[in-house]
């Protein structure tokens, strides 16, 4: 971090009326009262969850993971362990083996994600060099035992089959490296909004 990255904020000077609190509290009360009696707004915003479901946020919601398939229907993962290294919750467990296919060296024989430990940060998706692991917009993730919540390769591939029409794989033909040359991704600089 450099010196110019540090923003020193001065406390705003308060006027005498503001220091008496009460006018400000009145303003606050007006806001809360407005929301309280704004029935139309409430009806527009509220979804009665199990009966009404909200539209899935396809672009940016981070829900259950899926393991993508390449166009040939094989698992796209190349067992590079990038995701499990990046994972802050340490919840991805991969066992790699030599790949039976000529276009890559390794593939995962086992790929388990503990969905209960996961914090849905999306780091795995960021880390994956071939976009094999992705987070889907599905949030209804329930189970009755802990063991049931450890999703294995089959289950994760299954989720891909269920969701691929809703949200296609981000960079489909990337597994055969070099051919597409990779694609640019829009990545925001850290602190992009604060530095002047």
């Amino acid at each position, binding site marked *: 971090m450099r010196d110019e*990255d540090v923003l020193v904020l001065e406390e705003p000077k*308060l006027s005498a009326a503001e*220091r008496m*609190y*009460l006018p400000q*509290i009145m303003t*606050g*009360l007006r806001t*809360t009262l407005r929301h309280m009696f704004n029935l139309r707004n409430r009806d527009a915003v509220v979804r009665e969850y199990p009966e009404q479901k909200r539209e899935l946020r396809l672009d940016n919601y981070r829900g259950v993971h899926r393991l993508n398939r390449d166009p040939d229907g094989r698992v796209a993962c190349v067992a590079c362990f990038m995701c499990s290294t990046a994972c802050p919750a340490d919840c991805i467990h991969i066992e790699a083996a030599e790949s039976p296919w000529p276009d890559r060296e390794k593939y995962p024989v086992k790929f388990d994600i503990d969905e209960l430990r996961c914090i849905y940060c999306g780091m795995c998706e960021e880390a994956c060099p071939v976009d094999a692991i992705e987070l889907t917009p599905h949030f*209804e993730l329930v189970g009755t035992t802990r063991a049931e919540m450890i999703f294995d390769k089959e289950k994760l591939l299954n989720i891909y089959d269920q969701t691929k029409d809703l949200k296609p794989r981000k960079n489909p033909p990337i597994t055969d490296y070099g051919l597409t040359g990779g694609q640019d991704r829009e990545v925001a600089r850290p602190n992009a909004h604060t530095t002047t």
Partner: protein
Amino acid sequence: MPDTPTKTYDLLLRRRSTLIIAAVGAAVLGGGLTLVLWPWIKPLLSAQSTFSILLMVAGIGILLSAFAICTLAERKIAGFVQDRRGPNRVGFWGLFQPVADGLKFLLKEDFIPARADRPVFLLAPCIALVVSLLGFAIIPWAGEIHWPWMPAGHTVSTQVASINVGVLYLLATGSLSVYAVVLAGWASNNKYAHFGGLRATAQMLSYEVPLGLGLLCVLLACGTLRLEEIVQQQAASGVWNVFLHPLAFLLVLISTFAETNRTPFDLAEAEQELVGGFHTEYSSMKFAMFFIGEYTHMITASALMVALFFGGWAPLPFGGFLADSTAWGWALVKFGIYAGKVSLFIGFFMLIRWTIPRFRFDQLMRLAWKGLVPIGMAMVVGSGVLVALERERNVFWSLVVNVALLSAALGVARLSKQEITGRQANMPEIEVGPV
């Protein structure tokens, strides 16, 4: 994914007709019992001592149901303010939610930490509950009642106890409730709880002072400590005390928030900083007792403010007309008005909770000692002068004094450059070193 199957009892509970049947059933049962037992009830109603005992029993029932309604109302209001709907799953419009909550409290594991101070740990919630119930004894719910079968001129008072130190009694019992918090914090043997208890002590001690000063102004002007007489005065003159002492009311209102541990003064609980504060270690019914204590305290405090400043059961323009009437029908009307005012106050308490963020502890102390206490003292002097000049029931002169005090306070705040809030001059400079 498949839809959740809705259970039959769930459907039954959520229908409006279930609610209506339950209400009608309760009314019929209550009415029938009263009719059957009427010959025994009648003499009990006519003597003040037995009537007080009846009031006490009824009062506890009403209070506990009021508490149940309060918990629902709090969550509903919280929901509405945040553009949500609040609980609406149990019963029609969520009306059976308190029942579900009560069952949950009863069935939960009652846990006592191994290193806790057992007797004190058990004592604290009891103090919280009992002390908050004590205040009810002197609230004049509906003035005097004259039953049709009583000899003329005889009345019973709808107060459990009519004692001549009324307001002082309320103050004394009200400030006892700090023991519950402190003892709970101490006995839990938990640092969070301990901090909660410490904060509560300092806060309650500080806000007793402005509360007392604010009340003193009214009491000076009224010349009595009996709540029923204060209400009667306001009803007879048709002027509520809040018009005579707006600043005193403000002081009492703010201190009441602090005394009942409600936001923005809920530093003793402070979920974000202290987990749960003094009740971190409490579960099940013991936690519920703290909860009931808090709400009951809120109801008592609202009832006190209504009696002192908002004319108790006196509606604004026709107070005098109700003041002379002692028929039991009118007593019901009076009680309705009183209860309505109290519920408005409680609604206000809840609305404030979702409006203002919590104070920092130093701000809290500064507000009490540098803000409220000086104004309170000046106000007591002002009221004293008015009383000496026999102008205490004159709206014009009272308002003049209040406005003068307010502008003086604003002027001092402006001139002194002493911040009540924000960064203090005597705090060390912030140093931004190399990073």
